[in-house]
């Protein structure tokens, strides 16, 4: 495949590590660049998944500093339009729809081809298993436009959530099975409870806790949101001990994911 620079060997690993601040793929050929296609046995994997969820074998590769971790079993389209900030984790079965990119300038100036960014994700952000990240689209004056979406640093997206927000700021914790509607704006230090449905165009002010269907503000995060408390919870606290808190620095969590 066309991305030798973007990957650091380790063909057996669950996660492909990319160099920091690098586009996943520098060659805009979205139809060829689905990662799962690079390994033939993984294609059968995805077929099997149709009938039964597979317990994933714990392939482990050692952590390398400053790399994003992208699961081989994630489904990423339009990789050229996606930027990952570094130390960001894309887990298995995550879909990133980079192919739905802004097209505003493209038809007029086909001469110089600037790859538009459709999804940009910050540092130490974790997109959990089964989530879908899809840029929002809107029809203005009769023309369909996809808008680039931005996800900040230290954002946790819970499993099986669907994100179509236009912007998610840093230190946001999104629970499992959450739906964030198109053009929602989520500010810093927000917690979204599991199974919430954030309606389209909703703005969630910083420090809010939202939940429900449709989501409404149900509370405020405490002053201690994201503060792990005096110098961390203890480095090397051993197994089973969370070394991260919701809304806090996710570096330790990212490190623990292999």
């Amino acid at each position: 495949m066309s991305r030798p620079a973007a990957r650091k060997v380790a063909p057996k690993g669950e996660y492909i590590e990319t160099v920091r601040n690098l586009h996943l793929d520098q060659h805009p050929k979205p139809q060829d660049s689905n990662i799962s296609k690079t390994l033939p046995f993984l294609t059968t994997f995805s077929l099997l998944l149709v009938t039964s969820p597979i317990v994933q074998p714990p392939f482990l590769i050692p952590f390398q500093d400053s790399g994003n971790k992208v699961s081989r079993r994630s489904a990423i389209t339009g990789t050229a339009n996606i930027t990952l900030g570094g130390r960001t984790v894309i887990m298995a079965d995550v879909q990133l729809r980079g192919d739905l990119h802004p097209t505003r300038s493209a038809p007029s100036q086909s001469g110089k081809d600037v790859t538009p960014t459709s999804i940009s994700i910050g540092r130490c952000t974790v997109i959990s298993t089964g989530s879908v990240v899809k840029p929002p689209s809107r029809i203005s004056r009769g023309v369909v436009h996809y808008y680039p979406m931005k996800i900040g640093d230290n954002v946790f997206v819970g499993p099986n959530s669907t994100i179509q927000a236009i912007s998610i700021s840093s230190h946001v914790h999104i629970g499992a099975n959450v739906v964030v509607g198109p053009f929602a704006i989520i500010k810093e230090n927000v917690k979204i409870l599991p199974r919430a449905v954030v309606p389209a165009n909703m703005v969630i002010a910083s420090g809010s806790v939202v939940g429900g269907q449709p989501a409404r503000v149900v509370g405020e995060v405490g002053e201690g949101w994201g503060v792990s408390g005096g110098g961390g919870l203890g480095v090397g606290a051993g197994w089973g001990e969370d070394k991260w808190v919701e809304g806090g620095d996710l570096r330790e969590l990212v490190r623990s994911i292999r």
Partner: protein
Amino acid sequence: MAQSFPYTYYACDCFDSNTTTSTKRASQVVAAAAATEDEEQTFDPQNPRSNYALYPLEHLLYCEDCQQIRCPRCVLEETLNWYCPSCLFEVPSSVVKSDGNRCTRNCFNCPICISPLVVNLLENADADQGTPDRHILICPYCHWSTLETGVEFEKHTGVYAQLARIANGGKHIPTSKERDKERERRKELEARQRDSKNPLSPSSETAAVETEAREPPSRDDLFSNLAAFYKSQLEAQTPANPFSPGEMNFSSPSAYSRIMNLYSTNTAKKQKRVKPTPMREAASELEGLVIYDPASDSAAIERIKRDGWNSTLSPTQKLAQTNPHLQFADELRPIPTLLCTKRSKRCRSCRHILSKPESKITSTRYKIKLLALNHIPRLSIRALPPTNPPIPSIPGGSTASQPQPFNYNTLRSGIPTHFLLHLSNPLFDPIRVTLATSSTTPGKVQSRVTILCPQFDVGANTDVWDDALSSSPAPMARRSTINAETGQIEAGKIWDKGRNWTSVAIEVVPGFLADLKNVSGEEDGLDEDDDLLEIPIFVRLEFEADVHAEERGLSDSRGSKAERESREQAFWTVVGAGRIAGR
């Protein structure tokens, strides 16, 4: 909200301790005496009052002067500023006073489902012929729109002001000036009619003319009528007020004292009692009197017959409206978004500021933030798997990849289960910890609890780098507490230890849900959440600290000079270990 296990809540004793109130009333003293008797009693997490005492650690503040935890109930809040959570614009307090705590820009919530409404442009087929664009507010979630109540807007900005002029159905809402004029006009008319017809017949004829000509006055009309009436009454009452002749209103101090005079029958101000003559009450519609009309009720009933329940409103929808007396869906108005506040918090007893955010709306930083989690140890609980594999945990969604994740929702009755209590110390001094709990949990389902090592030390918090640098020497003897022969966990020894944390094992024998049903004899003796395994744990800390804790940052470097004093801290916590599986 379903809290995921395991969790830890900290109890703030602000209700029981009277430190927050300087003046004790007799009842409180009695209560305090009772409390001291209760001192030995275990904190009961199922007590209704506990709902108001338990908080997650992140929500607690710490007063360094009182050296106590401060929960949302024992702080004083001061509003720094108001802002709209939707457009994030700051609203000056003067505007909040005059216009209420609602956004007066374009932010509205759906009257049906509370989602934020969006301004949409209606497709304009005749745009070429110069017909102006029309806009509506529409809910992206439940698809309610102002078209359902017949409201359209000319511009997509200043919707609040536009909406204030358009009634449902597209009619014009008179401004207060127009109302005043109209009222004057009608008053004159009435007066003239009275003059001309008074000697002859009673006013049945004029009344008929009145009612057929106009529909019942709106709530706003009535309010303005009533307000005008009271204003004129007040003016008549105090004609010679030298300070503010025209500015008399209800909130003025003289109005207040007048009302106080009305209600305080005896005592004081005997000379003033003569002054207020009783005020007349509103007597006509123009003065704001509403007379109950049974016809409106029968009309409503007819309407429900015709349109069904779907045309009526739920209590929540009614209460969200500015006018809570609406009955039908076509009377709904978009709800202007309620404002939010940024608040600083003070300790209730010593008035020191505990938290103060930066006043800028967009800033999420704090000028002052005294967090409990920087002062009291974080206690967490985790299941101890039966075997002892060194598996790195993968938190979050990827638990499926863990070989056998512990299911906290199905604890088995009667089977001893081991948990780990993990205490990490945020203080820069080593602490000595004593944990205590009752042998059985309070509540209907009694589970047996044994803390295998109730007394232990936790190291001081140091810079993370110290730990990273000094980690090369072999870590302390870990997991030494399992007896090699029996596989039992030894009592009296800690489980594991690190730089500023220690973990100890705790054995829990979950109680039986089934027994209880038989004993109580009721159809089901269990309430909701009675199957929760919540363990109250009393934590007591002893440590030596610099006398002036708040200047620790300075004195730390030259610690030898600083005076040391021994301190003690104690509080209840409740750890939620899981849910006992039913049959």
